[in-house]
């Protein structure tokens, strides 16, 4: 494979923390800065499929399309090989951004969870479009909103980034409804990338059911969880009356970090969610808002590319 994504080791961009990206201003510049960090020169997309651009040979198997047989190689080796190609614009996808009230939380990070999610979506959209895929954009908060249909045309990245910028945290949304609607909007099998804090009112049961429905129709589901370390109990907070921004009337007098069970309970919740997703065949990527994006996304994309290579 030619296009395995690899973070450029030792470059300054590897270390760009979210607060530095925030100072860059537009999402376009942020996306390019991140992508420059893990894609270099002629490297191709980590999202590999079958397209027009030659990728490699594989031994012929029963059922393969005979039009892909490499007859010249057969003449030299007397063995049948089929030609595999880089996927281009075949794949449709959707970025589904959680825009509920809790995503506006900043915590100990320099940016809010929503802003961090916008950085992630911008970078991945850039990568997908370079790979010839067609990403769309939807969000859910007080309501489910379809901002852009999946497309791959000049200017689509700009539209997508503008749509991302317009998303604001508001209300409490239902991810299951949003995922169902996104599934209906995809005309064929596609990829759904959900970016959320994954804090669901019913402990994620309906969400997992919606993921199962997407998987059943053959869609690829990637769940990127964004959280701050304060929420996870990894940073000591101070004594206060804490409340969930989506349930403001329920107040708990506590000190996060001093509560020995708090960190464990949060971790258990996310572990259970991760297991549920993996059982459905969905991919789960936990991120925290203090992580440099190049490191976080680059490592994941590289591992994903290796998996793709092994699978094929």
């Amino acid at each position: 494979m030619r296009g395995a994504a690899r973070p450029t080791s030792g470059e300054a961009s590897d270390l760009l923390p979210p607060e530095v990206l925030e100072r860059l201003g537009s999402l376009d510049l942020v996306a390019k800065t991140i992508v420059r960090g893990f894609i270099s020169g002629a490297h191709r997309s980590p999202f590999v499929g079958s397209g027009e651009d030659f990728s490699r040979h594989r031994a012929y198997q029963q059922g393969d399309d005979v039009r892909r047989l490499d007859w010249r190689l057969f003449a030299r080796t007397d063995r049948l090989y089929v030609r595999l190609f880089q996927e281009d614009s075949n794949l449709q996808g959707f970025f589904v951004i959680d825009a509920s009230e809790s995503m506006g939380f900043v915590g100990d990070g320099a940016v809010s969870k929503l802003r961090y999610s916008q950085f992630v979506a911008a970078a991945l959209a850039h990568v997908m479009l370079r790979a010839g895929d067609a990403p769309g954009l939807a969000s859910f908060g007080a309501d489910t909103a379809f901002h852009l249909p999946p497309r791959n045309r000049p200017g689509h990245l700009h539209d997508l980034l503008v749509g991302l910028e317009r998303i604001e945290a508001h209300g409490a949304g239902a991810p299951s409804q949003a995922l169902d609607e996104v599934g209906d909007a995809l005309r064929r099998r596609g990829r759904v990338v959900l970016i959320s804090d994954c804090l669901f009112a019913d402990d994620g049961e309906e969400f997992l059911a919606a993921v199962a429905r997407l998987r059943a129709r053959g869609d690829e589901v990637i769940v990127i969880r964004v959280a701050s370390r304060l929420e996870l109990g990894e940073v000591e907070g101070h004594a206060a009356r804490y409340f969930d921004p989506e349930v403001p009337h329920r107040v708990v007098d506590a000190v996060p970090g001093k509560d020995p069970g708090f960190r464990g309970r949060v971790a258990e919740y996310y572990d259970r969610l991760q297991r549920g997703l993996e059982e459905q065949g969905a991919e789960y990527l936990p991120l925290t808002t203090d992580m440099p994006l190049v490191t976080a996304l680059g490592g994941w994309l590289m591992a994903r590319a290796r998996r793709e290579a092994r699978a094929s």
Partner: protein
Amino acid sequence: MISVLLPGFLLAGAGLAGVVGALHLLARRPPAREALPTARFLKEDARTLLRLQPRPTDVPLMMLRMGLVLCLAAAFAGMVWTPGRSGEGHVVLLDAGAGSGLDWDSAISLVAEATAGANGAESVVVAYGLEDGAREVDIASLGSLERGTEAATAEDGLRALREVVLADTRFSIVRAEWVLVPTWSSWNDGVGLMRPAIWPGRLPIHAVPSARAGGSAPSAGSDPTRGRRASVVGLAADTLELALGALGVPVGPVREAPPRPGDWVFGDGISSTELGALLERARSGEIVVISGRLPEGAAGVPWVGDATPKSRRQGLVVPGEPGFASGVESFGGTPAEGAAVVAVFADATPAAAAVSTGAGCVVYLSVSVADGALHGSSNYPELLRRLTGGCSDRDVPNARLGRGAIASLQRDDLPDVVDVAGLAADQGVPLSKWWVALALVLLGGELAMTRSRRMS
């Protein structure tokens, strides 16, 4: 310099601000509320509750509220800001209007003479009556100064002096002198009364010679008492006899016929029959001086209007003579059309008028010649002589101001220097509106801060 009109409000405001601070320090805030999306995983325990004791007061909010109270108190206290002043100024007030017969070269000489006596204080010349009003002028350029086209009044000068000096922040005390054409045209109603209120200091007057007046009183000339005889009708015969005797005018009974031109006849509190007889004598050439209450329907007298006693006046002013600065009771009314004013009260309202009748003259004085305040004055005989000259002193507006009028402008009884810093305090910039504006800003901040505290 900031002055406070009602300092009690400041004290009250300080007390109230102290109360606000005390209430803040006594009351304590509830624990802060903070958002945490994973709050549902937290558990409440006793140790946490112990840490969540009410917090000390919100100091910024307390300071904001105390500031708001103090601003309101300052707004009600009537604070006034006046620019800082220091130093002594010597101001020469110059009449640059088209005063009658103004001798400008003489005026410039008088200004130079006045400024020479500045005694080290900075000398300033304020010209009034110019086309553009009043302003400070350069002494060196007085020769080319373009004067006004209309005569300026004494009141114009006084107001100009006040305005220019108060607008000038160089001096805290000012000594002023006045270069003036002292004619009756510069006099106007009320100037005598307003004089100390407009400029509460002495104003030595340098009199510019008047070309028309020629520097002499219009009544000056041959002795008007020579060969006269006088007679009295009505009251006060004894008093008048003494005064006229002092003038060398013998007093005799009113002769029936024939009247003698030039003789004087005084009538005070006369009846209509007596008035008719006196007017007949005036037509025959005698000089008739009528004073006090007039009979109903009196005609041929240079005075119209109510003859009821109206008010007590400060004194009489007769052209060319010092004022009779004693309180007199005046009757109402005004000079008749065509009559010449021959005397005024200290507030510049007409006191006596004269009109020629036939070969003689009728003079009316709106004060009884028997008024004790008049005949108690050492100038009483001279007043009588001036009244009888009323018809010959017809050019009163351009006549030289009498010593009494000049004295009422000069006011030797007032101090030489004026504390203009004190005068300017009344005209300073009121700060109340700025305190109110600041209070509104603080109120907005207080509301916003209170709201944000409630939200958190």
